[in-house]
């Protein structure tokens, strides 16, 4: 992978490496030339790896005590909370860990959107990342069902019923997903099985995500191609590892804050009521990280239309690299796109807020405006702004703005010259 040939120092190391070049891989990861100007928004890849490992480890431990049966699941979760040694801690890490995972992944995605990390030649990294994100949502949804509380049950009912909107085969698909004629014990059983499977699928995709990243190398805040290795790069270890470690520590402080001081603030109190198929809670809401999509679903007065738009809101991200027509990657040099970027961030936050509110009155109006703008951002703003925008001059190299104290036009090349 890297240009130089790595030769282990010890004889045993050489013997092993000739047969399985793991040490070469280790050397590649250590020496991997990284842009020297990566800011703290670039530390979330490492943080997300930590989140995944945390969820897998705590999840395996919880599965040692949890019982996936409709009559026993709720009690077994309470058993974990009250009887199992440190069960409360492990479960709170797992449940808050899901929220922290999504917090980190949203920052990671919005970092990509700002600095144009999804653009050529990194489209495949972006698409694998979105597949990871989809699997995360599936895992989180199924995990939320496992305690078999009221929100678990009715969340599962509403989400699986989304598939009944599909013409002709919708009802059959829903029954097939349930394994019964409603959300019931078979549903819980299979959700547990899949909830255990998905993190390992994510792990595999993470390997591909990093592999695909190491082909072109990292994007960077100025978004230009750099020579590797050069004076624009630093070795991954120790420069990036120490920066990632510091960011991770700060992240863990916030994580621990939730776990120890307010472990239920991101959940819903109704989920401490055992599932009751005869009574729907008055106000059902998904977990916070799904709220913007929930708002889009509810903004459409048609069942099938709402479902299509909700899934479309995610799938439109897959074609984003081809909707963005700008030749400049980083929004730092895109004065018009930069403003639209922040409007888009506000739009998503607003959708999240109205998704948590009842679907009536002003909230419904805001949800509709927000939904239209969400799609307009990708379908209209991205292609059009890329074509008409006059971008700022971009620097020749990463060192240049650092050494000269700014991207002087005399030293910078014009965008149209060669990007």
């Amino acid at each position: 992978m890297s240009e130089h040939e790595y030769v282990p120092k010890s004889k045993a190391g050489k013997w092993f490496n000739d047969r399985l070049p793991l040490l070469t891989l280790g050397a590649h990861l250590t020496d991997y030339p990284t842009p020297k100007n990566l800011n703290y928004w670039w530390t979330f890849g490492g943080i997300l790896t930590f989140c995944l490992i945390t969820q897998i480890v705590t999840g395996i431990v919880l599965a040692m005590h949890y019982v996936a049966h409709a009559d026993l699941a709720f009690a077994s979760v309470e058993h974990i909370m009250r009887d199992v040694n440190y069960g409360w801690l492990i479960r709170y890490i797992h449940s808050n860990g899901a929220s922290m995972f999504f917090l980190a992944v949203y920052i990671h995605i919005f970092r990509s959107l700002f600095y144009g990390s999804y653009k050529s030649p990194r489209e495949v990294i972006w698409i694998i990342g979105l597949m990871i994100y989809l699997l995360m949502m599936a895992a989180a949804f199924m995990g939320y069902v496992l305690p078999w509380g009221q929100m678990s049950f009715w969340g599962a009912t509403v989400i699986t019923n989304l598939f009944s909107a599909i013409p002709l085969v919708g009802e059959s698909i829903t029954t097939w997903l349930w394994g019964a004629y409603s959300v019931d014990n078979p549903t819980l059983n299979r959700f547990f099985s899949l909830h255990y499977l998905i993190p390992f699928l994510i792990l595999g995709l993470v390997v591909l995500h990093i592999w695909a990243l190491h082909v072109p190398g990292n994007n960077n805040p100025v978004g230009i191609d750099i020579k590797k290795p050069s004076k624009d790069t630093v070795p991954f270890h120790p420069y990036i590892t120490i920066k990632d470690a510091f960011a991770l520590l700060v992240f863990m402080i916030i994580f621990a804050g939730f776990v120890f001081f307010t472990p239920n603030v991101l959940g819903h109190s109704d989920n401490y009521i055992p599932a009751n198929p005869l009574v729907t809670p008055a106000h059902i809401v998904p977990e916070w990280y799904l709220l913007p999509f929930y708002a889009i679903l509810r903004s459409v007065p048609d069942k099938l239309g709402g479902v299509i738009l909700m899934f479309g809101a995610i799938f439109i991200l897959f074609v984003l690299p081809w909707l963005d027509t700008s030749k400049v990657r980083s929004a730092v040099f895109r004065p018009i796109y930069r403003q639209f970027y922040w409007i888009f961030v506000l739009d998503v936050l607003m959708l999240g807020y109205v998704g948590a509110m009842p679907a009536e009155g002003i909230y419904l109006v805001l949800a509709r405006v927000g939904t239209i703008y969400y799609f307009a951002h990708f379908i209209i703003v991205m292609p059009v702004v890329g074509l008409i925008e006059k971008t700022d001059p971009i620097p020749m190299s990463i060192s240049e703005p650092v050494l000269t104290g700014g991207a002087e036009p005399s030293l910078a090349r014009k965008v149209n010259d060669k990007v």
Partner: protein
Amino acid sequence: MSKEEKKVNRRDFLFTASYTIGAVGVGAVIWPMIDQMNPDKAQQALATTEVDISSIEPGKSITVLWRGKPIFIKKRTAEEIAEARAVKLDDLPDPQKDEDRVKDGKDEWLVMLGVCTHLGCVPLKDKGDYNGWFCPCHGSHYDVSGRIRKGPAPTNMEIPKFEFVDSNTIKIG
């Protein structure tokens, strides 16, 4: 030349035949893996329920569980039946006569699946703008016949297969 062509054709046939048999084999293995997720024998065995309805007062309703889903059984008053039948079909998103939703001669008994046809929540009784049911999840209003009047639900609440065993008992399923 013609001999060679013939050889190639024979090989093509073998490839196609092999792929076809292979695809059938793969399908035969995949189908059981898919079908195992459909409702099993134990689930299907719960397909009928008998309910005693003798204690229901006019205007009142009970909810029973059938196949894991709530069934609303309502004994409607004469006024309620009249109200349901006065509605013009043009006013209904999913036009259906009240007469078609009850058994002949048992007009007071409304037996329906208590599941909102939008996303499966259980609507609340005696609520909403039409004197019937209201779904709190996404705001669908149903009338006294369980027909959708306003909101995102696409169809009326479903009428399950049921019959009167005698005047005091119904069998659902």
